[in-house]
């Protein structure tokens, strides 16, 4: 009797909650709410503030917003630092993606084969992606140090660097102090950083190819490279596109690598848009200029996002 009573009381208490859990419409909105709050507060609002700033004369010292039209854009575009940052951002991203897609394909094909110690190889390859990017870059900063770089030591030892050698006569490469070497260093670290992600995406694509198709190719007399270039790669093309688009976003918007490694130097030869926007807007307090520079990232990112969504909706894995 007592038990029964408790049961009855319990069920009435739960009624409000049960009512909600049966109401799909209300429940759906409730589950969506955190996502909506997140997007509005952390994406939409800052984005519109950035647009407002870029058309105003706001600085860290003077927070009143006065409309100045395209003045900020016109001013930042004229500076050589901006021009170089824009070219670098696009150039670094492009070169990085070309190198990454070639290497990622090679790695993914190797890792999709059966061999002993495969899981160790897979783990090692994913490791740079799991390392915090700032720590990874600091590691590279030491590796490329102007005095203590181990690369210098190897080059000297192998007779490539030093008096009377190809790279001589000095005994230091000064990787980060010379224009082209500094740019190459930045690209190298971008590649090192993006490669694991692209490899894993391509690997997933390769393993998703129907085994029947590969068996059929074998029966049809196709050898390794024909199967790779006429069947496997064309089939994972949409997935490759996703990998490239991800790579573009990560490289194009990254500021950690350049900020830690070269701070845009030597002079401003390795400057990129995010770092330049940060230096202008935050370090020098010219919020309006910083916002204007950062907005130049927007068209590229918009294009990438549109392409990505289109590829995603078209992708069909057989």
């Amino acid at each position, binding site marked *: 009797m007592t038990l029964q009573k408790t049961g009855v009381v319990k069920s009435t208490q739960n009624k409000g909650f049960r009512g909600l859990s049966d109401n799909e419409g209300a429940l759906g909105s409730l589950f969506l709410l955190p996502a909506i709050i997140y997007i509005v507060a952390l994406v939409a609002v800052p984005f519109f503030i950035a647009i407002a700033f870029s058309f105003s004369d706001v600085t860290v010292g003077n927070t009143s917003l006065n409309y100045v039209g395209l003045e900020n854009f016109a001013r930042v575009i004229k500076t050589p630092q901006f021009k170089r940052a824009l070219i670098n951002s696009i150039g670094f991203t492009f070169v990085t993606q070309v190198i990454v897609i070639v290497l990622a394909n090679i790695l993914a094909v190797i890792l999709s084969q059966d061999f002993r110690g495969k899981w160790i190889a897979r783990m090692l390859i994913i490791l740079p992606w799991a390392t915090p990017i700032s720590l990874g870059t600091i590691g590279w900063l030491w590796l490329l140090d102007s005095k203590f770089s181990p690369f210098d030591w190897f080059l000297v030892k192998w007779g490539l660097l030093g008096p009377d050698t190809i790279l001589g006569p000095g005994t230091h490469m000064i990787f980060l102090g010379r224009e082209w070497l500094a740019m190459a260093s930045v690209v190298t670290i971008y590649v090192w950083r993006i490669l694991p992600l692209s490899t894993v995406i391509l690997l997933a694509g390769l393993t998703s190819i129907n085994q029947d198709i590969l068996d*059929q190719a074998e029966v049809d007399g196709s050898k390794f490279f024909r199967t790779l270039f006429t069947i496997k790669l064309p089939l994972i093309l949409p997935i490759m596109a996703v990998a490239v688009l991800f790579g573009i976003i990560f490289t194009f918007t990254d500021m950690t690598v350049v900020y830690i490694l070269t701070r845009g130097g030597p002079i401003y030869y390795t400057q990129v848009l995010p770092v330049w926007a940060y230096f202008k807007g935050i370090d020098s307090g010219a919020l309006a200029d910083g916002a204007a520079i950062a907005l130049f990232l927007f068209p590229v990112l918009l294009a990438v996002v549109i392409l990505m969504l289109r590829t995603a909706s078209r992708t069909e894995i057989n």
Partner: protein
Amino acid sequence: MAIIETKGLKKYFDSVKAVDGIDLAINEGEMLVILGPSGCGKTTLMRMIAGLEKPTEGEIYIDGVEVTQLPPRNRDISMVFQSYALYPHMTVYNNIAFPLKAKKLSKKYIKEKVEWAAKILGIGELLERKPRHLSGGERQRVALCRAMVKEPKILLLDEPLSNLDAKLRATARDELQQFQRQLGITTVFVTHDQIEAMGLGDRIVVMNHGKVRQIGSPEEIYHNSNDTFVATFLGSPGINLIERNNYLVGFRPENFLPREVVKQKKGLNKFPLRVSRVEHLGADRLVYGETDDEKGVTKVIAKLPSSITVLVESGKKYDFVVQEQHMRYFDDQSGIRLKVKP
């Protein structure tokens, strides 16, 4: 002369004996059907002949040459998979041309060959289409076309009709047989569908648990099944088995008839049948019931063609008979058929 021969062929996946010692000789130009329930090892056997699977033990010979360790491309075979495995990103033309391109033949020759093959299978109109725009039947033809275009010695077909709907399957079966006869190509056809097997096979290999249970013509394996597995696997429904003292009596449902239908007086085996259910299937009636004997009650089924109009009702008891020539006897331990009546 046998064009394919397997000797003591075995394939173990860890402890699972997928194929467990198979000796097979396939004659040139014949259509050999490998029939068995799913998981009996028939597909594994075919994949070993194709070279997609390395045998654990045993040898395979094609045209007198040992090919056990050779990759598929050196075996002069073609295969059609159950899924057809068309290359989804290629047009029908490029799909069919693929085996020829892999052989690095000239473009002109490839074009001639593809058009020749497409004409035989009546898919000349489809050459520029992508596989996803084809119907099931069209895909099957494209797959067949791609398999024959390099004119292999042997064509291997892995349940190529099971993805088609029932109506299409009958016509596809007919086309397949005509096609095979026309080319005279040695064909190995794997299926779990006995109607396909009986309809298509010059000879049928019945497999179970990785072993061959019987090889023979469709009539042979149906009427003179080697053992109770083959006898019950074939026919729908399968053979009726009744236990006697130390052997089993078997007779097919279509040979199990009401007493009054059979004119013959002598050599009849009587079985009183208590009918529990009658199914009307249009062309015939299935009569489910029980028969008693010294060992107890056994469930049996009779299949009466619609030409037999005798009234049979559930809940009543009738005298059913089987003519002696339709009786089969099996050992009750091993299930192997006994040649003489015990």
